[in-house]
């Protein structure tokens, strides 16, 4: 413990932080994807991902949250860092359960969390190595120290991963050889996520274009990721070794490596890519701004040239679609507590709530869930099917949902003037990767208007661009 405190006092997240520089590079995405596969092979993490995570159904939203969270964890300001760590801990403390084999999992498990940091470190090292620049001894030591500090920031100590780099590699190899398993989560990431990634909102109006691109890019991304994984891991989890995949992988890492070194800094900055995907994210005109504008114009041209689809009334959407896009956050076809918890998590993250407000929000969602369970779960299996929801949702008094709306109003109304003004409205509905500009109401929302709008959206009666951007 003493050693850890010492580490915290040395400001490893100062101006020369390697980790911060790394997390701001776009190619870090390759490494994070690789690390995610290694994490998913950990039985505890794999089970938690399958049971609770929304990354398959809402990968773009998840990606945005991860980027924002990482930036906060590496913020130069110590207070921002510890606040975010506390938030992440609260969030993870709510994720626990039992996997289909009856084994317990817990997102606060110290060994599992150490493994997350270990995979991120090793993937960073691999990223440099595969990108044609290997790290020298002292640099690698520094990076390792920074990762250990990151773990200490989350966990309170970093005792779960070896103290020195020399001890790290045997630990890492041992984990791969003896601890990891061929989990469902690994297969879901490699074969379902890559093949079925929903279109980012910029391309949501062109399902055909997206599907065509994805048909090629999905398998390529899977092949690149598999080829970059340690060989012993591939053997253990029985991943295919496709001809040419290694060359493709080397090509991908080399290209991004060169791009990072040769192109102007800001071009390969993660923020630039975020702004490319999400028109609202960019603060000012970035280097990709021109590209994005031209792409926007091309997309506009394409939309205008394609024959107009029949006038569909967007105000009504089918109950099925609403169930799949909004209610079933985890994408398993059922409505259960993890789905509602994911909604609460998303809102808490979006508004950056403090502990007390977060607790109220979760409690409101929990109360709603109990109500749904008592009223809708006809066969008593602990989850609500689409049919069960459709059969009785319309007739429900839904006191629980009113409570949720009420709490949502309170936590959104930061200045407590009983009105959601334009700024607060923006905070709640700040779009994630969504290209539509929100036209917030200038004069603000009263409590009753807000609750009414929320209820009509959540009962699937009214389409709302704003809520769609929040929850679907």
């Amino acid at each position, binding site marked *: 413990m003493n050693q850890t405190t010492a580490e915290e006092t040395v400001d490893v997240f100062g101006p020369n932080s390697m980790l911060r520089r790394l997390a701001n590079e776009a190619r870090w995405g390759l490494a994070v994807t690789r690390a995610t596969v290694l994490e998913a092979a950990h039985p505890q993490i794999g089970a938690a991902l399958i049971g609770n995570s929304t990354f398959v159904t809402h990968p773009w939203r998840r990606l945005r949250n991860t980027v924002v969270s990482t930036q906060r964890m590496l913020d130069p300001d110590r207070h921002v860092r510890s606040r975010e760590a506390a938030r992440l801990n609260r969030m993870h403390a709510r994720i626990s359960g039992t996997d289909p084999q009856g084994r317990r999992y817990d997102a606060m498990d110290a060994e599992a969390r150490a493994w997350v940091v270990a995979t991120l470190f090793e993937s960073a090292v691999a990223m440099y190595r595969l990108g044609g620049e290997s790290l020298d001894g002292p640099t690698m030591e520094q990076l390792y120290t920074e990762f250990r500090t990151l773990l200490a920031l989350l966990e309170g100590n970093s005792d779960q991963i070896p103290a020195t780099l020399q001890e790290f590699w045997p630990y890492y190899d041992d984990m791969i050889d003896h601890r990891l398993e061929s989990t469902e989560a690994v297969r879901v990431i490699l074969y379902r996520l890559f093949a079925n990634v929903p279109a980012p909102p910029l391309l949501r109006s062109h399902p055909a274009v997206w599907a065509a691109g994805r048909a090629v890019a999905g398998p390529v991304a899977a092949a690149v990721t598999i080829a970059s994984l340690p060989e012993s891991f591939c053997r253990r989890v029985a991943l295919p070794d496709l001809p040419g995949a290694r060359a493709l992988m080397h090509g991908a890492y080399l290209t991004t490596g060169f791009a990072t070194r040769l192109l102007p800094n800001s071009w390969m900055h993660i923020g630039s890519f975020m702004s490319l995907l999400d028109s609202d994210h960019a603060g000012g005109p970035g280097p990709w701004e021109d590209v994005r*504008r031209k792409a926007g*114009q091309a997309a506009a*041209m394409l*939309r*205008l040239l394609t024959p*107009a689809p029949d006038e569909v009334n967007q105000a009504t959407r089918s109950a099925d679609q609403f169930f799949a896009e909004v209610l079933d956050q985890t994408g398993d076809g059922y409505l259960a507590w993890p789905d509602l918890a994911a909604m609460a998590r998303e809102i808490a993250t979006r508004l950056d709530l403090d502990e007390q407000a977060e607790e109220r929000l979760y409690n409101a969602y929990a109360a709603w869930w109990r109500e749904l369970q008592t009223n809708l779960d006809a066969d008593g299996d602990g989850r609500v099917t689409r049919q069960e929801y459709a059969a009785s949702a319309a007739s429900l008094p839904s006191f629980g949902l009113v409570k949720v709306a009420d709490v949502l109003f309170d936590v959104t109304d930061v200045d407590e003037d009983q009105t959601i003004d334009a700024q607060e409205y923006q905070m709640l509905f700040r779009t994630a990767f969504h290209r539509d500009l929100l036209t917030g109401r200038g004069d603000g929302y009263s409590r009753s208007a807000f609750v009414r709008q929320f209820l009509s959206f959540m009962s699937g009666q009214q389409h709302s661009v704003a809520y769609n951007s929040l929850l679907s």
Partner: protein
Amino acid sequence: MEIISGLPRHVACVMDGNGRWAAQRSLSRTAGHEAAEAAVIDVIEAARSAGITWLSLYAFSTENWRRPAGEVDILMRLVRRTIRKHAPALHARGVRCRFLGMADPRIPPSLAQDITDLMTLTSDNRQMTLTIAFDHGGRRDIVEAARSLIRAAVPAEQVTEATFARHLPYSDTPDVDLVIRTSGEQRISNFMLWQVAYAEWVFPQVLWPDFRATHLWECLDAYRRRQRRFGDVRQPTATTGEGLR
């Protein structure tokens, strides 16, 4: 066509007479709106080749929502079809398209999307700026500007005509020099009230669906022959009023 001197910089058309045109032919009112499309395209092209850099068309006013629902519905569809049909040509000719108004939620989302797309597509063009007043009301724009001033907390003594104008929607739009209102009607009808302050008005008898390039030239000619003085008696000139702005 060579560029003539003494041309108005900003021409606006109040497209009136579609209903009467249809009634004269015993057709439905909507047939009149459909016939208006040809006139719109003709005027845009004629104005552009004459060297006019700002053209505004009054397509739909905030008061027009009071028309029968069926007519409004068909109008919306017609606008959408016209946009989709002519977008590539407008873009190719370097016309920047903007829509003034567009605040009502009754505008169908599909049409709003197409309008946004057209504005995005043509946003970099500079040959001519075509402003389409759609769901527009001149008074509403002024109210909006006042709201914007108050929100920006501008002290009362700093509010001048120039600062006020900067808070109007599309504040880079110059004052209108010439307004053409077809079908002989002589009213303002809440059209760009702030911008038409010094405009010359012409009221040709022709109904809008029959309005063609030649009619536009006649109007431009009438404008050039008028002596624009902006209330000053000493300097009769035929300028565009730029000096005053």
